[in-house]
C-alpha cells in the first residue's frame, strides 16, 4: 500500500519536474520560474553591491588624507553619483525584490508567481538597465550630478555630456523592472495563497512585501515621470525645470523626493519583514502583537508618502509646510518603535536559540535604532538647517540604510542559505565576517556624525588640512577597509559552504513557515501538492505537513494535463476560486527587454528612427506575448476533461490578469497624478510661470473626441457584459465597430494636438499641455489596439461566450482611458479658465 503510494508520489514528482524544468543549456535564458529568477536577481544585486562598495573604497581612499589628488574632482563626482545610484537602484531594491520573488510563492504555498513571464522580463530590464548605466562608468562618462540629479545641475546647460542621459534612461529602464515586480507581487500575494490562508493568517513577511509592492506601485511613478520630463527637456528643450521658460528646478526636487522618501521605506520594510520573520523562529514562539505589527507596517507605508519635504528643508519652503513635514517625519518613529518593541516582547517570552542570523539581527538593532534616532533629530527643522548636506547626514543615512537593510539582508542570507544550497554555512568565518563588518561600519560612520557637526559638507572630493576633519576622516577610511574585510570574509564563507558545508537537515531552524516544507534545495514547482491551512504557523502546528505535501496528499496533485498550475484563491479569506494555469519557458521576455534596450541605447545616441523601430519591435513582441494566453495552444487549450470543481482562470470572470490590470492602472494613475501635481505646482509656485494669452487647445473638437470616447467605452462595456451573460452573437463584429469608432476618436484627438498653437520649447505651460495630450493619445491608441486584438481573438475562438475573461481584463483600461480624458479636460482646460488665466 505505502509502496504503491510512494511510487505514485515519485511518478507525480517526476511529472511535475518535467513540466516545470527550465530549458537545458542556453535555454535557461528563457526560464520564467521564480526560484531561478529570484536567485538571478539576488546574485546580480550582490555583484552590483560589490561594484558600489568598490566605488566607496575609492572615495574613502581619496578622503583619507586632506588635500589629496588621487582622484580628481571630476572622477570623484562620477564615483559618488554612481555609488548612490548603484546602491539604491541596482543593489538594494533589486536584491529585496529577488528575495521576495524567491520566497513569497513558497511562503504562501504557491508553485510560482502569478505572471512568470513578467518576472523574467523584470529581471532582464534590471540587468540591461544596470549594464547600460555601468557602461557609462567604464567609458568614463558616468553621470556626475549626484544620485538625486538636481536640476539645473543635471540639465543640458550644466551637464552637456551624456552622463545625465545614461542616468535618466538607464534608471527608468530599471524602474520598469521594479514596477513589474511590484504589480506581480501584489497580485500573487492577494490571489494565490494556498487554501485557507486568510489575510489574517498570512506569514508576517508577506504583509511587509505586500506593503512594499504597493509602495513601489505608487512611489516609483513620480520619478519615472520626472525622468521622462527631464530627458525631454535635455533632448528637445521643453522647459519643465528651467526658470527662463516658466519651469522650476524645485519641481524636480518635489517629484524626486516624492519617490525618494517612500523608496527608503520600500527598502526598509522587507528587511524589517526579515527581522519579524526570524525573531519568532529563534525565540521559538509566535510574534507578539501580529496585528500591531501589521498595522504599523501599513501606517508606515501611508506616512512615508507624506514626508518627502524633509529632504528639502533648506530650499525655502513656506514655514508652516516645514512644520507639518517635520512633525510627520517624527511621527514615523511611532510605527517603527511599535515593531521594535514587538520584537523585544517576542524575545521576552521566548527561549532564545543563539545563532549567526540572530547576531546580524542584533547588529541591525543597534545600528538601526541609532540611525532612527538621528533621523528624528534631522526632522527637527532648526537642527536640520545646520547639518543638512553635511557628513552628519551621510552618517545617518548609512546607519539607516546599512543598519535597516544590509544587516537584515545578511541575517536573511545566513538564515535561508541552507534553503538555497541544502548546506549549512560555517560558524567561525561567519562570526569573523560579522565582527569585522560591525566594527568597521561603526568606525566609519559613527565618527562621521562628528565630522559633519564640525562642518564638513557632503560631496566634496577633498578638504583643507587643519579644519579638525583630518583624524576623523582617516579613521573613517580605515574603518571602511575593515568593513570591506568583513564583506570579503562573508563572500569566502558563502563560497566555501557550497563545497564544505554539511548537509542541512529538513527545516534546520525549526521554522513555522511553509517555505521550509520544500525539498532543500527546492524543486522548481516548490510543492507536489498544495495544502489547506488553518493556522498561521503551519509547520509548528502540523509537523508532518511537509511529508504529506510531498506525498501528494493535498490539492492540485495531478499532472495528466501537463500544465503549470497553481491555486487561485479569494483575496480576503483564501477560499479556492479557480486554478491558475501559468505559462512555461518563453523567449518573449528576453526579446522584449532586448527591444527596450534598443530603444534605450538609440535614445542615448539620439538616433530617433532606431528608437522608433525599437518601440515598434517591443510593441509587436508584447502583443505576441499577450496573444499566447487563455486557450491559445501554448497556454491552456480547451479540452474535454476541463476540471469541473474549480474552473481554470481563463474560463472565469475574475482571474489574476484582471487584478494585474487594476494594479497596473493604479501605478499608471500615480504617474498621471504626478503630472497633475507638476501642472498645479508650476501654476502656483513657479517663479517665472507664464500663461499664453490665447487658449491653445480648441475646445469643441476636444469635447467631440471626449463624447465619442464615452460612446466607445459604453459600447465596449455592453459587449463585455453580453459576452459574460453568454450572448456572443456578433461579438467580433461589435468589437471591430468599437475599434473603428476608437480610431475616429483618436483621429479627432490627434487633430486637436496638430491644430493646437503650442509653443512647448518656449513655455513650460505649453510643454505640460503637450505631455498631457500625448498621454491621452497613447492611451486611446493602446485601448484601440488591444480591442482589435480581442476582435481577432474572437475570430480564432479564443474569446467568446464561454470565454469572456479577456474582455473583462481589458475593460478597466477603457474606463481608465475615459477617466483620465475627462479629468484632463477638467484640470488642464476648464480649471485654468475658471482661474481666469485664459
Amino acid at each position, binding site marked *: 500500500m505505502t509502496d504503491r503510494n510512494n511510487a505514485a508520489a515519485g511518478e507525480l514528482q517526476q511529472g511535475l519536474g518535467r513540466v516545470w524544468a527550465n530549458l537545458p543549456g542556453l535555454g535557461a535564458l528563457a526560464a520564467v520560474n521564480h526560484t531561478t529568477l529570484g536567485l538571478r536577481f539576488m546574485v546580480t544585486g550582490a555583484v552590483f553591491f560589490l561594484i558600489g562598495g568598490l566605488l566607496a573604497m575609492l572615495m574613502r581612499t581619496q578622503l583619507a588624507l586632506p588635500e589629496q589628488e588621487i582622484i580628481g574632482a571630476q572622477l570623484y563626482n562620477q564615483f559618488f553619483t554612481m555609488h548612490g545610484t548603484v546602491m539604491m537602484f541596482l543593489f538594494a531594491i533589486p536584491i529585496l525584490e529577488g528575495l521576495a520573488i524567491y520566497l513569497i510563492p513558497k511562503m504562501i504555498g504557491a508553485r510560482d508567481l502569478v505572471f512568470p513571464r513578467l518576472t523574467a522580463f523584470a529581471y532582464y530590464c534590471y540587468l540591461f538597465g544596470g549594464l547600460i548605466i555601468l557602461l557609462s562608468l567604464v567609458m568614463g562618462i558616468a553621470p556626475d550630478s*549626484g544620485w538625486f540629479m538636481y536640476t539645473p545641475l543635471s540639465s543640458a546647460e550644466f551637464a552637456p555630456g551624456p552622463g545625465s542621459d545614461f542616468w535618466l534612461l538607464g534608471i527608468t529602464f530599471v524602474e520598469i523592472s521594479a514596477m513589474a515586480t511590484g504589480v506581480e507581487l501584489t497580485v500573487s500575494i492577494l490571489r494565490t495563497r494556498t487554501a485557507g490562508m486568510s489575510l489574517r493568517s498570512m506569514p508576517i513577511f508577506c504583509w511587509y512585501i505586500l506593503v512594499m509592492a504597493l509602495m513601489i506601485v505608487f512611489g516609483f511613478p513620480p520619478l519615472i515621470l520626472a525622468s521622462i520630463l527631464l530627458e525631454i527637456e535635455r533632448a528637445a528643450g521643453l522647459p519643465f525645470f528651467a526658470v527662463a521658460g516658466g519651469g522650476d528646478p524645485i519641481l524636480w526636487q518635489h517629484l524626486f523626493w516624492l519617490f525618494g522618501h517612500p523608496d527608503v521605506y520600500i527598502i526598509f520594510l522587507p528587511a524589517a519583514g526579515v527581522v519579524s520573520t526570524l525573531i519568532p523562529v529563534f525565540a521559538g514562539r509566535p510574534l507578539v502583537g501580529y496585528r500591531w505589527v501589521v498595522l504599523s507596517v501599513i501606517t508606515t507605508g501611508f506616512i512615508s508618502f507624506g514626508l518627502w519635504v524633509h529632504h528639502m528643508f533648506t530650499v*525655502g519652503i513656506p514655514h508652516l509646510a516645514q512644520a507639518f513635514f517635520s512633525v510627520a517625519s*517624527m511621527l514615523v518613529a511611532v510605527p517603527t518603535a511599535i515593531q521594535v518593541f*514587538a520584537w523585544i516582547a517576542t*524575545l521576552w517570552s521566548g527561549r532564545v536559540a543563539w545563532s549567526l542570523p540572530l547576531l546580524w539581527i542584533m547588529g541591525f538593532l543597534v545600528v538601526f535604532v541609532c540611525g532612527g534616532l538621528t533621523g*528624528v533629530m534631522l526632522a527637527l527643522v532648526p537642527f536640520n538647517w545646520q547639518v543638512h*548636506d*553635511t557628513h552628519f547626514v551621510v552618517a545617518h543615512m548609512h546607519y539607516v540604510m546599512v543598519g535597516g537593510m544590509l544587516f537584515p539582508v545578511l541575517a536573511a542570507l545566513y538564515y535561508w542559505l541552507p534553503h538555497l544550497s541544502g548546506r549549512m554555512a560555517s560558524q567561525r568565518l561567519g562570526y569573523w565576517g560579522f565582527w569585522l563588518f560591525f566594527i568597521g561600519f561603526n568606525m566609519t560612520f559613527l565618527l562621521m556624525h562628528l565630522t559633519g557637526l564640525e562642518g564638513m559638507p557632503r560631496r566634496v572630493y577633498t578638504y583643507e588640512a587643519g579644519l*579638525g576633519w583630518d583624524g576623523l576622516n582617516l579613521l573613517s577610511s580605515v574603518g571602511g577597509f575593515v568593513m570591506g574585510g568583513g564583506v570579503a570574509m562573508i563572500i569566502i564563507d558563502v563560497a566555501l559552504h557550497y563545497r564544505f558545508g554539511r548537509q542541512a537537515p529538513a527545516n534546520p531552524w525549526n521554522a513555522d513557515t511553509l517555505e521550509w516544507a520544500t525539498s532543500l534545495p527546492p524543486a522548481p514547482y516548490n510543492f507536489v501538492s498544495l495544502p489547506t491551512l488553518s493556522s498561521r504557523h503551519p509547520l509548528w502546528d502540523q509537523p508532518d505537513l511537509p511529508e504529506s505535501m510531498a506525498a501528494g496528499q493535498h490539492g492540485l496533485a495531478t499532472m495528466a494535463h501537463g500544465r503549470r498550475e497553481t491555486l487561485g484563491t479569494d483575496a480576503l479569506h483564501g477560499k479556492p476560486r479557480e486554478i491558475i494555469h501559468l505559462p512555461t519557458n518563453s523567449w518573449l521576455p528576453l526579446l522584449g527587454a532586448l527591444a527596450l534596450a534598443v530603444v534605450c541605447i538609440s535614445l542615448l545616441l539620439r538616433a530617433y528612427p532606431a528608437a522608433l523601430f525599437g518601440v515598434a519591435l517591443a510593441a509587436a513582441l508584447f502583443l505576441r506575448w499577450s496573444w499566447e494566453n487563455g486557450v491559445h495552444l501554448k497556454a491552456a487549450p480547451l479540452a474535454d476533461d476541463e476540471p469541473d470543481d474549480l474552473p481554470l482562470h481563463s474560463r472565469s470572470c475574475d482571474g489574476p490578469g484582471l487584478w494585474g490590470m487594476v494594479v497596473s492602472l493604479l501605478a499608471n494613475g500615480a504617474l498621471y497624478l504626478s503630472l497633475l501635481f507638476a501642472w498645479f505646482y508650476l501654476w502656483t509656485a513657479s517663479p517665472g510661470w507664464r500663461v499664453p494669452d490665447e487658449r491653445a487647445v480648441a475646445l469643441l473638437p476636444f469635447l467631440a473626441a471626449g463624447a465619442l470616447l464615452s460612446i466607445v467605452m459604453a459600447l465596449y462595456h455592453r459587449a463585455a457584459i453580453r459576452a459574460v451573460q453568454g450572448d456572443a452573437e456578433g461579438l467580433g463584429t461589435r468589437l471591430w465597430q468599437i475599434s473603428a469608432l476608437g480610431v475616429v476618436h483618436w483621429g479627432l484627438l490627434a487633430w486637436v494636438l496638430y491644430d493646437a498653437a503650442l509653443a512647448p520649447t518656449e513655455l513650460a505651460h505649453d510643454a505640460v499641455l503637450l505631455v498631457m495630450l500625448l498621454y491621452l493619445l497613447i492611451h486611446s491608441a493602446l485601448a484601440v489596439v488591444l480591442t482589435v486584438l480581442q476582435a481577432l481573438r474572437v475570430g480564432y475562438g479564443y474569446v467568446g461566450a464561454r470565454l469572456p475573461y479577456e474582455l473583462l481584463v481589458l475593460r478597466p483600461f477603457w474606463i481608465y482611458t475615459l477617466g483620465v480624458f475627462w479629468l484632463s479636460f477638467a484640470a488642464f482646460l476648464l480649471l485654468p479658465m475658471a482661474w481666469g488665466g485664459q
Partner: protein
Amino acid sequence: MTGGRITAPLAVFILGSSAGCGGPYSTLDPAGPAASAAAFLWWGMFGLFTLVLVFVVGLWLYAMRRDPDPAGGQDVGRVHRRLLVGGGLVLPMASILVLLAFGIPAGHMMLPLPPAEGEALRIDVRAHQWYWETHYPGTGVRLVDEVHMPAGVPVNVHLTSEDVIHSFWVPRLAGKLDAIPGHENVLRLRAYSPGIYRGQCAEFCGVGHAHMQFTVHVYTPEDFEAWLEAAQHDD
C-alpha cells in the same frame, strides 16, 4: 597589550586633531544666536537619545537572556501590552513632544522676522559656479567671496543663484539656506562679536563645489559703517 599601545596614540591623535570641536567650520563652536540654538538642540537630543538607545538595547539584551515564564503565565499578556504601549507609543510620542517643545521656539527664533527695533541690514548674495557675489543695496559695493557685516545686529542675506543650486552656509553663525535660480531666499545672520568666520557652499554644485568657500568679516557697528563708507569710495 598591543591593542592598547596602538589605540592610545590614536585617541590622542583624534582628540588633538578635532581640537575640542573648535574648527573654523564647527557647528559646535557657535558664534551667533542661531548656531547656539542649534548646538543646544544637538547636545540636548544627543543626551536624550543616548539614554533611549541604551534603554532599548539594554531591554533587548535582557529580553534575550532572561528565562521565559512558565507556560501560560497570566502576566505575559500584560507585559506584552506594556511593552507595546509603553515602548511603541508612549516613548516615541513623549520624545517627540519634548523635542518640539524646544525645537519650535528655536526654529521660530531663526526666522528672518522683522526685529523688535530698527530694521535688519540687507545684503544680497548671488551664487555662481563657483564663487559668491555680494552686493550692498543702495551702495554699489560689490564683493567676491566675502561678506562684511556688523556684530550684534540682525542681517538678512537675500540669496539667489545665477546658474545651478548652491547653499550658503556659515556654520558658526547660522544654518544653511539654498541659493536657487529664479528664487530668492532670506537667511537671518547674527554674530555675537567681531571676527572672521568661514563659510562654504553646502549644496553640490559641480566640479568646483569643494572649493566654493567665502569669509564673513564681522565688525563692531561703528567699524562696519566706516568700512562701508571706505568701500563705496574705493569704487
